[in-house]
């Protein structure tokens, strides 16, 4: 079987958050629950790079390991999904997940945290494919319709790739090779010396009195 993976190209990700709203759009997740998010490192400084992250569908999923009710399962496509009918909303997966994927409804307070919600790779859940019930609990099941996750399909710069790990790796390999020459020619980092702070730029007033 194919092994589904996400891949995010930080050289292309521009933090437009298209993936985030695409996810909201297709899965109709409520305010406060963000199955996908874009994280920017060194924001506003040379070396600024963004990555779109969601559930990575790990092969050794820590969430599944710590779940006290064992509600996670791995599909034939290598996707880590969970059964909301089993989940008790304890939050352990959130403590364990390296990527911050598990989300909980914002109103969850004091004993009621609400069921965990996370990226399903647009593959729904354990219910009947594309049933109303499945949509309500898990969002869209695009995989069953032969489509890939909408976040990746709609990525503005095609930075976020999703699909069979081999194919995705191949696309990325081509990109790197394309890019390789320019990377090598210009020095590895894209942050050239031109990014250092200019000298006379201060906008401070020059009036003497």
């Amino acid at each position, binding site marked *: 079987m194919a092994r589904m993976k996400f*891949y995010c*190209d*930080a*050289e292309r*990700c521009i933090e437009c*958050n298209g993936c*985030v709203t695409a996810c909201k759009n297709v899965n109709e997740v409520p305010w*406060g629950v*963000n199955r996908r*998010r*874009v*994280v*920017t*490192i*060194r*924001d506003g400084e040379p*070396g600024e*790079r963004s*990555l779109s*992250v969601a559930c990575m569908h790990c092969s*050794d999923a*820590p969430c599944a*390991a*710590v779940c*006290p*009710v*064992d*509600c996670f399962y791995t599909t034939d496509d290598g996707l880590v999904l969970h059964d909301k009918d*089993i989940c*008790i*909303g*304890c*939050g*352990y997966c*959130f*403590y*364990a*997940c*390296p*990527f*911050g994927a598990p*989300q*909980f409804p*914002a109103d*969850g*307070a*004091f*004993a*009621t*945290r609400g069921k965990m919600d996370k990226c399903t790779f647009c593959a729904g859940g354990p219910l009947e494919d594309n049933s109303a019930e499945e949509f309500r609990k898990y969002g869209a099941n695009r995989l069953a319709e032969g489509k890939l996750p909408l976040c990746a399909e709609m990525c503005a710069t095609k930075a976020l790739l999703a699909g069979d790990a081999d194919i995705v*790796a191949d696309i990325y*390999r081509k990109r*790197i*090779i394309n890019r*390789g020459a320019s*990377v*090598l020619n210009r020095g*590895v*980092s*894209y942050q050239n010396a031109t990014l250092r702070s200019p000298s006379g730029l201060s906008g401070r007033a020059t009036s003497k009195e």
Partner: protein
Amino acid sequence: MRSMEETRWSPAATNCFHLFWILLLAASTFLVIPGGLARAEGVEIPNPGADLWREVRQRDATPVPVPAPTTGIDLWREVRQRNAAAIPAGTTQVSGTDSAELINALGDQWRRFRMEQLVPYGGYVLGGMVLFVALFYFIRGRVPIHAGVSNKVLFRYSVYERMIHWFIASIFLFQAITGIFLLFGRDFLIPVIGHGAFSLLASASKEGHNLFGPLFLLALALIFVRFVRRNIYEKGDLTWLLRGGGVIGKKHVPSNFFNMGEKSMFWLLVFAGGTLVVSGLILIFPNFGQGRALMGLSHAAHGITAIVMTAVIIGHIYIGSIGMEGALEGMKTGYCDLNWAREHHDWWAQRCENEDKILSRDQVGRAGVHSPEPAAGQVVEESGK
């Protein structure tokens, strides 16, 4: 009358328990936590990105400096490898707990702690405690009142004291049972009753556990206020400790209203209970923006103290019930047998005798008229509604 030999044995046996709890607590605190955190390490994950990068570099003979780990090409790899150290702090437009953090640095440690230490060792500790108690019972048998049950009693606990004792006891029991379901259920119950039924049980346990948690705080506060005075360590307690509660040497170790072991048990309850309450509150209010790291640590503290406390309480229950003759009586009726008091709390018993507070069982009677409780009339009125 039984021999003096046996009389001296009984407090030693009790004290032996108390000593064991303290050692257990110390051991778990000093060994388990740091051990757990130190052992957690990164996992080796295959890395196709690196190969790709190598291929690119090989296109040119000139050596290229290894890029800083967070240029675009490598950032994703570091993320996939969960290499938190290589990833600078981030920002994000998505509001949420820790959402700006690409990698949860403590997540893996927490997972390892929970799955590889807390669950197995916690199980061993609890199981071991039950086994230990059982063995102890079969080997040593019940500790009798050597002087036999007398006709005299001493007033030991008021209605209020008994109320709050059983209040905290029932809450602790409930919390312990639901907690045990949540901690060990996946390993022991799912194979038996299946996912669906266990999920139901776990959900109920979780809701109940969360709801009764704050009540434990209330109960703990009541207990603390009421009993703290009698539990302040005093002079004789050191002797008690040095003699191992009577285990070392064969002499009886005298004690006051509470002995050193009981006092330690009280302070353990206060501190471990306090830890349980604080960490528990952190866990059931996830909506105050506390991060995963704090919650993970709270969970670890909660788990360890809960295991230790439960183990101790198993011992406590044992001694309080089948383990020792006459021990339950005080907490049940409010009065304890004079002989029992002499054998276990002789300074207190002596003081009571001096103050002429010894009552006969007949005097106590059915309704406890001699209890220094509120006037009987008031009680009658209250129950007459």
